[in-house]
């Protein structure tokens, strides 16, 4: 078994080194869930590679050895019709392998099953929208979007719903995917054994901007998480300067029908909650870094950055200036 693990490691390493090390592969797991899934994958890969090499080697060997050679006579080769023993062998061996696969599947499913809920758990309600993710922390009393924060080591109980079509929540280094199905609440769980930012995205085709429905999970230390939570619970910042006040007015007229500034907004809005927009590092479905330039471009023309999204508006340069001035307060 030791040698197996070495080969496993090599095979896993091969995949990681093959690409850029920033790829969100579950073969670089950051949770016990992904770790179990990666181990199972690697074991399967070894089994598959053994079968692959054996069968292809026999095939190539036959092709070289049994090719019709120049100068061969035209007499047909020995006519072999069947061989019952051989046929039983190559039927029974795969059946046994099937049993092994089943046992491995069963064991891993047990290992990654959602743990029973406990009072210490963090509860998150994940809601899929075309084309962004809403994260509701019901016990902590606020909502945010696209960037999920969890404390390292915690058990995070996730309930999944969808506001429109089927989506699928997937952050490979933390866990396999679970669909967000309208009309059906699904459950999954998350945990992480290291701090850091882990990316993922919607995995079920959900319409025009399926490609820009991405996810960032920020795994914080417990202190950072607590600080983040208390910030998210605060009400949105108040406008002070003339520009900010003008921006707030424009926001109320243009943006507020879809975007809430109340972190505890009870209503299901069409767009992400913006109460603490600038506490996030990305926007537009975790697609663009949240920089001044990007956000101004977005306010100018959302459709060139995320064609087909529901935000279709035309703002004057003044309105953009004002709204931007207000938005950047929303830390």
């Amino acid at each position, binding site marked *: 078994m030791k040698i197996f693990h070495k080969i496993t490691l090599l095979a896993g390493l091969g*995949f990681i080194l093959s690409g*850029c090390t920033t790829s969100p592969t579950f073969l670089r797991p950051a949770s016990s869930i992904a770790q179990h899934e990666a181990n199972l994958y690697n074991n399967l890969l070894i089994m598959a590679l053994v079968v692959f090499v054996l069968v292809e080697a026999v095939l190539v060997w036959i*092709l070289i050895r049994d*090719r019709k050679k120049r100068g061969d006579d035209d007499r047909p080769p020995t006519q072999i019709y069947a061989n019952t023993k051989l046929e039983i062998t190559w039927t029974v061996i795969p059946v046994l392998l099937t049993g092994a696969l089943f046992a491995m599947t069963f064991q891993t499913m047990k290992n990654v099953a959602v743990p029973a809920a406990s009072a210490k758990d963090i509860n998150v309600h994940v809601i899929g929208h075309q084309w962004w993710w809403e994260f509701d922390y019901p016990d902590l009393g606020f909502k945010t979007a696209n960037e999920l924060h969890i404390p390292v080591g915690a058990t995070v109980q996730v309930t999944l719903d969808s506001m429109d079509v089927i989506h699928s929540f997937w952050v490979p280094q933390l866990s396999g995917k679970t669909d967000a199905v309208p*009309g059906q609440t699904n459950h999954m769980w998350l945990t992480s054994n290291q701090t850091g930012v882990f990316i993922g995205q919607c995995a079920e085709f959900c319409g025009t901007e399926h490609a820009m429905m991405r996810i960032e999970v920020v795994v914080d230390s417990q202190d950072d998480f607590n600080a983040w939570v208390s910030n998210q619970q605060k009400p949105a910042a108040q406008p002070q300067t003339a520009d900010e006040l003008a921006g707030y007015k424009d926001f109320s007229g243009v943006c507020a029908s879809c975007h809430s500034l109340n972190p505890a907004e009870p209503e299901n809005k069409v767009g992400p909650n913006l109460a603490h927009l600038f506490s996030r590092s990305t926007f537009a479905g975790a697609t663009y870094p949240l920089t001044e330039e990007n956000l101004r471009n977005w306010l100018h023309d959302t459709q060139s950055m995320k064609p087909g999204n529901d935000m279709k508006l035309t703002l004057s340069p003044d309105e953009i200036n004002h709204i931007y001035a207000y938005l950047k307060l929303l830390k």
Partner: protein
Amino acid sequence: MTVQAQNSSRIQGAAQRGFLSWVMTVDHKRIGIMYLLSAALFFLVGGLEALLMRIQLAQPESKFLTPDMYNQIFTMHGTTMIFLAVMPLAAGFGNYLIPLMIGARDMVYPKLNALSYWTFLFGGLFMYSSFFFGGAPNDGWFSYAPLTEKLYSPSHGMDFWIMGILLLGFATTIGSINFIVTIIQLRAPGMTLTRLPLFVWTMFVTSFLAVFSLPSLTTAVLLLFLDRELGAHFYNVAQGGSALLWQHLFWFFGHPEVYILILPAMGIVSEVIPVFSGKPLFGYKAVVFSAIGIGFLGFTVWAHHMFATGMPSTTLLFFAADSFLIGVPTGVKIFAWLATMWKGKLRFETPMLFSIGFVALFLIGGLDGIHLAVVPVDWQITDTYYVVAHIHYVLFGGAIFGILSGVYYWFPKMSGRRLDEGLGKWHFWLMFIGMNLVFMPMHILGIEGMPRRIYTYGAGRGWEIWNFIETIGAIIIAAGMLVFIVNFFVSLRKEATNKSDPWDANTLEWKTASPPPAYNFEEIPVVRGLRPLWDEKHPELADWKAAE
């Protein structure tokens, strides 16, 4: 017999040349050729769509296609390859070959056969006409509800898709019934079920799969149509419908469909490998039973497409176990092909190359498929490029390579000429190298977290290099297909040799002229074994003697 006599007299009475003679024909061979040519054109269109996708994905954040265009193109690529290319290509071979292989003069219902072809053709053209009427379908070839509801897909693309699927399903259903009855009723004297050529067997099983699985698809799309156009709520959750109902109905069809696509190719390979090895198919009965076994099991595994939808773990385990079991009959087939080649005298002409390619590549599609049946691993790799890699090793390395093997193998029967060998080898190697360059890296992309069906991706996720290599592979495949097109026309312009048996083959279609006369056989042959032509050519080694 009287049915056959009537049919052949009708065929002889019809015009023999010119455009109208093809439009009016009920001759199974002409219908078969029309099926093959139409499906080949759709295949080329589907291939161009694939090429467009590969150009778009060659680099991150590409603006070559808009998301709307990309989504229409990937939907039509899948729909085309499955419903308009691979299925009708198999139907074309079935039409052309089944009567010849079983020693009959035509299909049992020649007019129904013509209806089946024309419905298929118009169904395909109808679907494609959507590009000119406000946009093609854009929700993927399995069109998950509720995305397909009018609220989320307001263009008429989905309506074209629904209507097209209904027409194509109708064509396939009557075609399949025709195959089944023909195989049961019109076998030549002595052609018992245990002497039926493997290709006929696989078409027999395929036809049953189609007849039993298509009603589920028909139901699914009809309900969707009622939802979209008449305000019903079958998939509309807000009004009490179910989002997952579609998936169950669709995959109850969709998984047998995979075997509808691959079994005929397995049949072709099972014809070609024995001929080019100079041996009978090893374990004929086991191979037949494995095809039947795959057919039955194919109906019990549909929910393995739905492991991430939140099913209880008992259900997950049941469908996982069932899916593993399919590996057993599949293994039987692969071992049987290897054993057939074992100690043969292998000739590597182009049909054999494509059949060997099938065995080598289909094996990969079988092994990576097992990963997808293992539930916890599936949770990671489903809906990623890993799945795209898997289906293409099965349907491109498998079905298409098998079909191309059949094209090279039976082209001399249909046209009286062989396709050029040199160009054929170029074609094979370009396809073989190209397909591995496109689809092997897709495994890695799936592992590295790239979902399928995204029109663009961000830089710096480690996905660029593999996507770029894949695009190069796609161009190599396109070059291979260009070589094939050249080969096709160049070879057709060569003088016909009209050899009845150019490959030294085994089955009845090679007993008659190339191309065969409208009535196929001057005299209905009498069959004594699995390889009637072999028995004739090697009386001392006849199969029926070995059986005694």
